[in-house]
């Protein structure tokens, strides 16, 4: 969302037509609608609950971070946060590492069965993973992976692979073949060509697929709810359900908790916007 807004704003500078102006107004309006509640959360998380009830929409009188400390320590947000971070990052790294290698082969080599293999990977895009929860659960149970972080990570990584392979193989395909040939003549074997020539060139696409995996995993409620039992392994979305029950009346802490949950995503988009746009538009112009 942040990414889209930035890219459109950049382009709108050259727009001087009435239609262009209308689009600008629309987009700014949308941005306000999105940003306003976020700001409300930020401000109210720094105000005592009493004040919030008296006047829900106001600037904080002073900056007060007590509610964050409460959320972090008393409401176990520290546990949830680190669980979420570890599980999400590990899943994304695992899925991306697997995908980039698969995509390289699918994108750059033709061999017997290569198109069948490509379709096999892509078919994952069509399958609703959540519907497969029962067999998945039984599978993990037999492997002894229910209620383990490793089990969740494996499931997450598997869900991320189809999309990543799809994007990355398209990206690999459009890299000039002469590069591979030049490297081959320079004395590189297949692994060197992959590692030192092709891999560095798909980095923008890697950032894209990493972010696109990160967001839904970070927000996912379903799989940890089903697959994790012990609360010390819970991730933020599951942890929040308990937190909402416990702190029903402590709005300030609620807001702080929400913000802690959202912050990594905002940070991620701020850091990676440029890379994401580069990754998504790759192949439009020649590199």
């Amino acid at each position, binding site marked *: 969302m942040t990414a889209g807004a930035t890219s459109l704003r950049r382009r709108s500078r050259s727009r001087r037509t009435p239609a262009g102006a209308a689009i600008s107004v629309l987009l700014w309006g949308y941005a306000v609608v999105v940003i306003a509640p976020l700001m409300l959360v930020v401000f109210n998380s720094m105000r005592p609950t009493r004040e919030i009830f008296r006047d829900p929409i106001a600037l904080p009188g002073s900056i007060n971070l007590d509610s964050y400390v409460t959320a972090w320590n008393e409401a176990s947000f520290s546990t949830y946060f680190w669980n979420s971070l570890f599980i999400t990052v590990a899943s994304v790294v695992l899925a991306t590492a697997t995908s980039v290698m698969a995509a390289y082969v699918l994108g750059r080599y033709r061999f017997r069965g290569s198109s069948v293999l490509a379709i096999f990977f892509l078919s994952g895009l069509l399958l609703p993973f959540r519907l497969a929860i029962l067999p998945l659960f039984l599978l993990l149970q037999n492997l002894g992976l229910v209620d383990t972080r490793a089990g969740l990570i494996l499931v997450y990584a598997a869900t991320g692979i189809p999309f990543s392979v799809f994007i990355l193989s398209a990206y690999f395909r459009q890299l000039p073949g002469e590069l591979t*040939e030049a490297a*081959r*003549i320079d*004395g*590189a074997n297949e692994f060197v060509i992959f590692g030192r*020539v092709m891999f560095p060139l798909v980095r923008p696409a890697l950032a894209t697929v990493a972010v696109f995996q990160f967001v839904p995993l970070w927000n996912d409620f379903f799989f940890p709810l089903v697959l994790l039992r012990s609360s010390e392994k819970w991730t933020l979305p599951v942890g929040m359900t308990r937190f909402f029950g416990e702190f029903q009346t402590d709005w300030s802490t609620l807001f702080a908790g929400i913000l802690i949950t959202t912050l990594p995503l905002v940070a991620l988009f701020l850091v990676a916007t440029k890379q994401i746009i580069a990754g998504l538009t790759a192949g439009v112009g020649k590199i």
Partner: protein
Amino acid sequence: MAKITLDDIGKIYPDGTRAVGHVNLDIQDGEFLVLVGPSGCGKSTILRMIAGLEEITEGKLYIGDQLVNDVPPKDRDIAMVFQNYALYPHMSVFDNMAFGLKLRKMPKEEIKRRVLEAAETLEITEFLDRKPKALSGGQRQRVAMGRAIVREPKAFLMDEPLSNLDAKLRVQMRTELSLLHKRLGTTTVYVTHDQVEAMTLGHRVAVLRAVSPQRPYNLQQVAPPTELFNEPVNLFVAGFIGSPAMNMVYGHLEADGDTVWAVFAGNRVKVDPVALERHPGIDERMGDRLVLGIRPGNFEAASHVAGADPDKQIEVNVEVTEMLGNETFVHFLLDEEPVMTPDIQELLGAAAEEEAVMGHKTQFTARVSPDVPVTAGDRLALVIDTAKMHFFDPTHGVRIGATPPPGMEAMVQS
């Protein structure tokens, strides 16, 4: 450095396309050999087979004395310069040049020494820290050259390395390439479809032609540039080498005592005996229909030649003139159907139909001195240097008295 030997090399692509057939070439140690020919004639395929990027499906390839058919590219010890340079976009110029050496585990100081030396030679020292994206086309071209040079390979393979440069830069780089080769003396195989590049760079030039099912042979003629120009083996080579192209017209020779006359399109010119000597066996072809070839440069305005022989002149109606400063091209038409052998059809490609529409006229171009006052519509007397005339067989296009190109022997005998 090493010689490269192609022994009856052929290539059939996996989809069944035959791209190359029966290519025999002995490339000498230190030679600069140019492969030239129209688009699709198999130049790149041959070069890529030498490089090891394309499987050799027929014949044997030797680099030095080693049979390399099944040797992977990295072990052939050759360097290649690509048309689009193929520089690694994420590496600096220095790293681009050093990559091959690093992979060969060369000591760091030696790598640095070689890269700096090559950069010095190519005048790219100031760009060593830049990425290829921040370089102009000409500079990228130099980096690509540098990457080949530092390897100090047995041979350089270059596939149209100058074709992405603008005209002026191309001429400059051509000269530099030539000097570089003089300095390094590395065996070089150079692919181009630009016959000027071929003529100026090559010690020898191999003219190639696309194979056909009837004629699975690419090579037409392998010879030093002047020989190609003066003694083209057939109409294909004659039409391809030289710019503007050689003029060709149907005609015949008439012996009249000691003198031989060339008769074409209502003209009759005396043929210099030198021209006859250059075509052994021409005596037996008196009166036969032939293709006569005259290069544009072998014309001159009669008014500008002291004591011009009236027997070697033709009078023409000037259609178009092109004044280029140090020469003027005069275009005119002869009253004869255009020469349309398979060779010529192949050379003209799509333009062949256009030519056919012209009907019973043959286009000619003459180069005259720039100070000849001539404009379209003028009548002009031209004198022909008939010692430089060419005679070809009209059916298979082979030059009279020449050894036919591979695969055409049978046709010439029948």
